[in-house]
C-alpha cells in the first residue's frame, strides 16, 4: 500500500473524491431509470392531479366563504395552496416504496444488490425518482393555483426555493416509504400501512389549518411531523408580502434544516434495511 504522505495532494484529493463521484453517478443512474419511465407513461401524473384540484375547488372554495378557519389577513385559498402542494408531494412519494417490492419479486433488486453500488446510492436514487414525480406534480398544482386566482409570489428565487423544498420533501417521504416497504415486504400490507399513515400525517399538520387552531396535544404532534415543515417552508416562499411572513411559523432555514436532517437519518436507516428485502 502506498502511504498517505507519499501521495501528492491532487492524488489524495482524487482518491477522496472518486468514491463520492461514483456515488453521485450511480444515484443519478437509478434516478434516471425513474425519469425515463415517467416520461414514457405520464398518465399517473394526470390522474394524480385530480385530487389536489378537488381539494382546492371544493374544500378551498367552501372554507373561503365560511371563513371558519382563522388565517389572519391571508385569504384562505392563498393559505391552502401551499398546503395542498405539500399534500400532493406527500401522497405521490409515500407510495413510492411499493416499487421496490415489485422489483424484489422480479429479481431486479437482487441484481442491484449484487452490483458494486453503495446501498445508500440505491436509496437516494429511488428518492430522486420520487422527487422527479413530485416536481411534475408541483407544476400542475401551481398552474391550478393560477387558474383559481390564488395570489402567489412569482419570482425566480421563490420558485427555485419551492423546487428545492418539493425535491427535499419528496425525498423524505419516499425514503420513509422505502423503509416501510423493506419492513412489511408484501404489497398488500404496504398498501394498508400507506393508507393508515397518510391521513394522520396530513391532518396532524398545518396543511389546511394553522397550528394555532389545534388542541395542545395535536400541536405537539404537528411539530414532530415533517409535513408541517414542508408546508411551512412552501408558505414562506409562496405567500405574498408581510402576510406570508406572518403565516409562516418556523422560518425557511429551520424548515430546510429539519427536513435535511430527517432525510439523512432516513437514508442511513433505509440503507441498512434495503438488503434485507431479498434475504
Amino acid at each position: 500500500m502506498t502511504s498517505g504522505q507519499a501521495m501528492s495532494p491532487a492524488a489524495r484529493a482524487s482518491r477522496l473524491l472518486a468514491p463520492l463521484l461514483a456515488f453521485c453517478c450511480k444515484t443519478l443512474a437509478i434516478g434516471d431509470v425513474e425519469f425515463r419511465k415517467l416520461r414514457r407513461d405520464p398518465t399517473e401524473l394526470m390522474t394524480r392531479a385530480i385530487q389536489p384540484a378537488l381539494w382546492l375547488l371544493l374544500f378551498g372554495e367552501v372554507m373561503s366563504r365560511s371563513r371558519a378557519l382563522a388565517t389572519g389577513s391571508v385569504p384562505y385559498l392563498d393559505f391552502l395552496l401551499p398546503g395542498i402542494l405539500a399534500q400532493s408531494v406527500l401522497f405521490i412519494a409515500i407510495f413510492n416504496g411499493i416499487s421496490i417490492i415489485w422489483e424484489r419479486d422480479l429479481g431486479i433488486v437482487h441484481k442491484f444488490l449484487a452490483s458494486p453500488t453503495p446501498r445508500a446510492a440505491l436509496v437516494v436514487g429511488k428518492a430522486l425518482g420520487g422527487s422527479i414525480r413530485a416536481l411534475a406534480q408541483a407544476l400542475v398544482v401551481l398552474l391550478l393555483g393560477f387558474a383559481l386566482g390564488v395570489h402567489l409570489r412569482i419570482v425566480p428565487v421563490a420558485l427555485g426555493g419551492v423546487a428545492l423544498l418539493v425535491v427535499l420533501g419528496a425525498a423524505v417521504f419516499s425514503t420513509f416509504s422505502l423503509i416501510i416497504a423493506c419492513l412489511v415486504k408484501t404489497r398488500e400490507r404496504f398498501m394498508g400501512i400507506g393508507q393508515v399513515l397518510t391521513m394522520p400525517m396530513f391532518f396532524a399538520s398545518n396543511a389546511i389549518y394553522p397550528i394555532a387552531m389545534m388542541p395542545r396535544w395535536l400541536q405537539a404532534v404537528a411539530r414532530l411531523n415533517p409535513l408541517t415543515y414542508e408546508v411551512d417552508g412552501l408558505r414562506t416562499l409562496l405567500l405574498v408580502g408581510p402576510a406570508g411572513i406572518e403565516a409562516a411559523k418556523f422560518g425557511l432555514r429551520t424548515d430546510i434544516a429539519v427536513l435535511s436532517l430527517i432525510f439523512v437519518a432516513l437514508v442511513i436507516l433505509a440503507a441498512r434495511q434495503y438488503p434485507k428485502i431479498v434475504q
Partner: protein
Amino acid sequence: MLLLHPELMVTSKLAVVCRSLTRRFGPIAAIDNVDLDVHSGETLGLLGRNGAGKTTLIKMLTTLLPPSSGQAHIAGFDLVHRPSRVRRAIGYVPQALSADGDLTGFENLLIFARLYDLPSREQRPRIAAALAFMDLSEDADRLVKNYSGGMIRRLEIAQSTLHRPEVLFLDEPTVGLDPLARDAVWEQLKRLRTEFRTTIVLATHQLEEAEILCDRVAILNHGRISVVGTPAELKAALGAGATLEDVFAHYTGAEMGVHDGAAAAYRQRRTAERLG
C-alpha cells in the same frame, strides 16, 4: 495483501473457494458446512432437488445473504470482509426473469454499465457489443415487456457480463424457456466460456443442462454437497451404463423416477410462483 487461510494460499487458479460455509434459517441449516472449489475458467453445475439449498448458496456467493459461519473467497476476495470487491468481480443472473419491462433493452444495459463503473466513453461500444453477442441488436430499442422469455434471459446475461466478470452465477437460467430459447442460452453460455474464459457457476435441476454445459457438477442434498466430479467420473463410479439420472437419484435418495421427480419439482415451482 489479502490474508488467506494457509490452505487457501494455493488458490491462484481457483475462482471460488468455500470452506465450512453454513447458512442457518432458525434451527434449519439451509447450507450445511459446504466445502467447494471452482477452478478458474470452468463451468460448475450445482445440481439438486427443490429446497436442496442451491439458491441459498448462490445468494451467499453473490453477497446477498451473509453466511452464518464458515468462509468463502470469490476471485481471491473474502466474501464477508470485502463484499464490494467481490461484487466487482462477479455477475449474477437470478432465477426470475428480472429485466425491467418498462425500459428498452438498451436502457436495461445502460443502467448496469453505470452501476458497474464502466467509463462513459466505453459504455456505448460495450453495450452495442453485448447486444450483438447476445443477438439482440435489432431489438435494442424495443421495450423489454414485448420480449420473449428467451430474449429476456439473453438480455440478462448481457447485463451481468457487461463488466467482464471473472465469475458468473446463474440460478436456473433456462427454467420456463422453450427448447429453442433454451438452446440459444446454452450456446451463449458456452461462448462466454470459450471466448472470455468466464468461470460459470449455475444452479439447475435439469440433468440435460448439467451434462451439456458443465465441466463438473456438485450434487447438493439437504444443504450438503454429496459429491463433486465430472459427469463422466460420476457415471463411471456407479458402474457401466449408468446415466446422470442414476447418479442424481443415487445421491439425492430420490425414490421415484428422477424424471417424475424433476417434473413434480417443476410443477411445484410454477405453482409457488403463481401463488407468489
